[in-house]
């Protein structure tokens, strides 16, 4: 039994590493500026990977080496402050190694650049819709109490900044290599706007506007999904995200309806 147990533990470690090494299920190819997120996550996974392998192999060794044998007696070792201090030191060091770059990357994640293009994301059961600021670069005021079938975003038509806002009910289009700051809202329950290729995610909470920013770095078609349970359509709440050249983006944007043309009080 001890030999068997030891072998099983080693096989679990080998199997786990093999599954990781197969590379079948791993990060989607990054399509945003957030290589810092990948970096912090990889460092963290590296540190815990080393700990996982070391501790399990040590456990496998212990149960093989110290299995009950007639002639031997266990040693009375109630503690050893020196070993304990060394181990606490190593653990603290490991945590600093993964936490420091993590906090640094996080501070960048929550500091959007001033020149970022603002796009509003509005979640509802079970779709994502989008509002662009239009030529004036400003999103018009909106309020949940103004939402109606004719005014699905709840835009305040009295606000001059709202007139030129542009609406998209299906797709999110973004120009490549330009910083984007999302303003995220929800009409009903909590959703979460997650684009795996961009690594970023934030809940859409009714009654609040939440934010995150990124720079799409690669043209292509990606997918936004919902990451917060929002009812029976949760698993079908997704939307195409199209990253394209600035010209193509502006061409697309020009074809979308504006608030002035479509929203009635």
């Amino acid at each position, binding site marked *: 039994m001890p030999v068997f147990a030891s072998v099983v533990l080693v096989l679990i470690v080998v199997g786990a590493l093999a599954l990781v090494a197969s590379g079948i299920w*791993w990060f989607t190819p990054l399509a945003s500026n957030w290589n810092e997120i990948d970096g912090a996550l990889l460092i963290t*996974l590296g540190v815990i990977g080393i700990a996982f392998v070391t501790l399990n192999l*040590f456990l496998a060794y212990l149960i093989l080496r110290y299995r*009950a044998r007639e002639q031997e007696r266990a*040693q009375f070792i*109630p503690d050893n402050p020196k070993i304990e201090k060394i181990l606490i030191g190593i653990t603290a060091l490991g945590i600093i190694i993964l936490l420091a770059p993590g906090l640094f990357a996080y501070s960048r994640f929550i500091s959007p650049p001033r020149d970022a293009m603002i796009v509003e994301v509005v979640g509802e059961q079970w779709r994502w819709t989008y509002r662009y600021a239009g030529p004036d670069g400003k999103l018009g005021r909106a309020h949940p109490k103004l939402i109606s079938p004719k005014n699905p975003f709840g835009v305040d038509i009295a606000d001059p900044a709202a007139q030129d806002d542009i609406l998209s009910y299906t797709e999110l289009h973004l120009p490549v290599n330009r910083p984007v700051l999302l303003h995220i809202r929800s009409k009903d329950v*909590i959703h979460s706007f997650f684009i795996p290729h961009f690594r970023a995610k934030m809940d859409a909470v009714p009654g609040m506007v939440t934010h995150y920013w990124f720079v799409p770095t690669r043209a292509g078609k990606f997918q936004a999904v919902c*990451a*917060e349970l929002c009812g029976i359509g949760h698993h079908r709440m997704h939307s195409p995200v199209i990253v394209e050249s600035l010209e193509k983006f502006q061409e697309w944007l020009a074809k979308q309806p504006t608030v002035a043309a479509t929203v009635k009080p």
Partner: protein
Amino acid sequence: MSHHDHHQSFWTRYIFSQDHKVIAIQYTVTALFIGLVGLVLSWLMRLQLGFPGEFRFLNPGSYYQILTQHGMIMIVYLLTAILLGGFGNYLIPLMIGARDMAFPFLNMLSYWVYLLSVIVLVAAFFVPGGPTGAGWTLYPPLSALPNAAPGSGWGIKLMLVSLVIFIASATMGGLNYVTTVLQCRTKGMTLMRMPLSVWGIFIGAAMALLAFPALFVGGVMLLLDNLLGTSFFIPAVTLFGQQLPREGGNPLLFQHLFWYFGHPEVYVVILPAMGIASELIATHSRKPIFGYKAMVIAMAAIAVIGFLVWAHHMFVSGMNPYFGFFFAVSTLIIAIPSAVKVYNWLLTLWRGKIQFNTPMLFGIGWISTFIIGGLTGLPLGNVIADVPLHDTYFVVGHFHLVMGVAALMAIFGGIYHWFPKVTGRMFNETLGKLHFWVTFVGAYMIFFPMFLLGILGVPRRYFDFEALQYLPTQTAGLNIVITIAALIVGAAQVVFLVNLIWSAVRGRRAESNPWHATTLEWQTPTTPPPHGNWGAETPTVYRWAYDYSVPGAERDFIPQNVPATPTVPAGTARTV
């Protein structure tokens, strides 16, 4: 206080009993029963995920209802109830040399109120609309608005009422456990001589007393939002194109209340499990637990810091993003006392004489699964790494391994370990080992691949993955493997139940101390111990709980109630 010789009827002895041991068995049997329901629910979910569309009775609505009930049942009604109500009740008085709990009547009441909460919980399966499908986290507005989620009529209300009843029960139980440990220890049983099981249950129960009130408050407010149309958690919302007459509330308030309970709740479960695992590992490697004092301090540290980490569940909730720095640091600090515990279990095995019986196998399984489960908490606590991983399968793998599988390893190991004392009979070792190997290896097969799915970005709580365009084609195959592993692991639990029931009736008669253990529960005059536990005199304690393999001693264990004499040295650690 010596009512062990009272003449008792069947009803007062076995049903409305005030004996902590009978109440412990009642708690354990009820918790295992409802846990079995939770297990079957997990099978249904895995059937859908492994074979989407094959089982027509599973639709998104029923899937989310099953998912919600599974989570709540396993965390609250199985794990919390069995560890505090089951192990806490059985072990505290016996291990500290008391005749019973401080408040036996309250103890009995605690069980019956718990049973009521389970009945109300199960009733939700039979009401119009069925149980709530808002997820075990019950986030409003989803859980508060009519028709937003399945079971938004009767289902959610019964769930909240059941939780409120459970909290009443847990409060009665918790006050009892804490008071008993503080007030009812026998002569010589100082706090620093208590076995780590008692420490774990004691600190876990104290945490429960401080954490559950937050859930109580949140639950009552959510119930009012549901029943009376208040708006504690509801801002102005439009549901299915209709403006609702609600405004002014804040959904994040509920999340803070929920996780102020929810994270300490993890430790309410894990600390007793840590204590039990310590007993398994020390006893069956015939060695003192390594660093007893460090183990106690680590548990206390986990308990204190455990109340300061709750918002790591809310890194992408929309709360003030600057909170992320604080909660990431506090969360990763808690890894240090947790790691100390892992090192000390490993170092307890080091130079030991390891007995490969079923309880020890579960002790080893506990160490391994706690390692993988605990370590995978680090990326989730490291705020920026949580951003991509949050609400993906990485989280599912993490909490199932650390709070589900690891805790169950300790629970199963503990049940096998104390089975001879509880029933007076031995369990079947072969079936026990079969149960262990299938559960242990199977758990890795089920949950390890989920880490990779999470890294890939697969969101959790999805009825199917058809809409996701970035999944490799092999993912369907992986989901089938996970499902088959889950079915087999589930079946192994039937082996466990058969073993328990058969052995309790037909098992070989057990000696009173079959493991040659040092702690007081193994030194009772009769086995199983009668009501009152100790005969004429309660034991006197002369040493700490871990005098195993003391140099110069005749045998490799010295019970706590054996005085130090020239032939029986006091091996007590210098730190105690």
